[in-house]
């Protein structure tokens, strides 16, 4: 748990960089700095240096305070699930603080290097490096807890007669994931329009993710379990019937599976679109695969029944 405090301290480092560089550079910086560059590379928008610096510093301080609050609150509560929430907040705050520091360093050094015609160019990498600060914070915050789940009880097989055939199919929609990805695409678009046109390319990433994970078709039948994504039908996962040891219905806490979306953790993977009921497959190689869906008992019972038909 002490690692959380160390991670919170790391979130403050970029904030300190913003403050310290001001002390070093403020004498030499012009009163207005270029804060936006056109596609030709020439600056096309300028802002008050002090105002720009104060804004970025304020964002950094908010991120720092969020991190500190999350770490301290978790130290008091001490539950592993809450520590995972704190880790998420710390990583986000680290990326945010790093990003504003990167933005500041890039803009200020561009102005210092050539006050008459400041160019951003490769200095954009400061911003990327700043975002990556979130990864450093992640390393410091420690591993997400991996609760040991009880051995799979499995479910009773579906009462399939020898002449009966069955298949299960459902479509998963995730307003949460669609909403979050659209919101982040909008945020990147705003940044692209105001700060850095290169970000237009980045905006496509959350948009694509939203389209892919917004609608997923899950089928369980004699072929095994299949997940096919979205509008275009991208196969996400196929687990043949013969690879499945047992199938169970369980409640999933996204924080215990590494968050929302398609999660890959050591020894297990999951498609987590929300907390709650999920189909969990225990595979013969010891891995687990989970997908959140309503009434997971139905596909679990079906897979168990179909599996018992396979001659050993």
């Amino acid at each position, binding site marked *: 748990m002490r690692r959380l405090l160390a991670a919170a301290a790391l979130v403050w480092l970029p904030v300190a960089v913003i403050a310290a560089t001001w002390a070093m550079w403020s004498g030499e910086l012009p009163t207005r700095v270029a804060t936006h560059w056109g596609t030709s590379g020439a600056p096309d928008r300028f802002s008050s240096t002090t105002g720009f610096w104060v804004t970025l510093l304020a964002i950094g301080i908010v991120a720092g305070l969020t991190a500190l609050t999350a770490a301290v609150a978790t130290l008091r509560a001490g539950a592993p699930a809450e520590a995972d929430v704190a880790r998420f907040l710390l990583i986000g705050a680290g990326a945010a603080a790093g990003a504003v520091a990167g933005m500041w360093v890039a803009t200020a050094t561009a102005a210092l290097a050539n006050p008459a015609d400041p160019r951003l160019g490769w200095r954009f990498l400061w911003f990327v490096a700043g975002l990556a600060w979130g990864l450093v914070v992640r390393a410091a915050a420690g591993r997400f807890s991996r609760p040991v789940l009880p051995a799979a009880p499995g479910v009773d097989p579906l009462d399939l007669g020898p*002449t009966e055939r069955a298949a299960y*199919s459902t479509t998963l929609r995730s307003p949460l994931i669609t909403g979050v990805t659209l919101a982040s695409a909008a945020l990147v678009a705003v940044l692209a329009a105001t700060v850095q046109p290169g970000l237009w390319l980045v905006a496509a990433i959350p948009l694509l993710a939203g389209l892919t994970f917004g609608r997923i078709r899950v089928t369980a039948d004699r072929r095994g379990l299949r997940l096919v994504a979205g509008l275009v039908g991208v196969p996400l996962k196929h687990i043949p019937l013969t690879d499945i040891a047992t199938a169970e219905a369980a409640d999933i806490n996204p924080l215990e599976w590494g968050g929302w979306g398609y999660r890959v953790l050591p020894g297990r993977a999951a498609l987590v679109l929300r907390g709650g009921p999920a189909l969990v497959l225990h595979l013969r190689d010891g891995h687990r695969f989970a997908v959140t869906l309503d009434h997971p008992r139905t596909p679990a019972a079906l897979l168990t029944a179909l599996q018992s038909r396979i001659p050993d």
Partner: protein
Amino acid sequence: MLFRVDVAAAEPLADQIAAQVRGGIMRGDVTPGERLPSARELAEVLDVNLHTVLRAYAQLRDEELIELRRGRGAVVRGDADATRLRLVELARQFVREARRQGLAEAEMIAIMKEAQP
């Protein structure tokens, strides 16, 4: 939703599949706007003839429960719930009239069974 058919049953396979979809809509396992598995896919996994599934889907289309679109497969109609409500309303009228005539539940069920062709 779960599709299950019994190849040994007297009821035609297409009718069985159609009944499964109807039940799925009534139970809310499939919701309006949701896409059913393609006929080809369902035929493959249930190991039945493609035309059997197509016949079942055509039946459901005629009952105004699903829409069949070339290339888009079968989609549960937005007003599919209304058809169930119509049935429920008819059942209520039936029960009301039967009660008025002093019929017991077993007699109502017997009449329902007689009404079947």
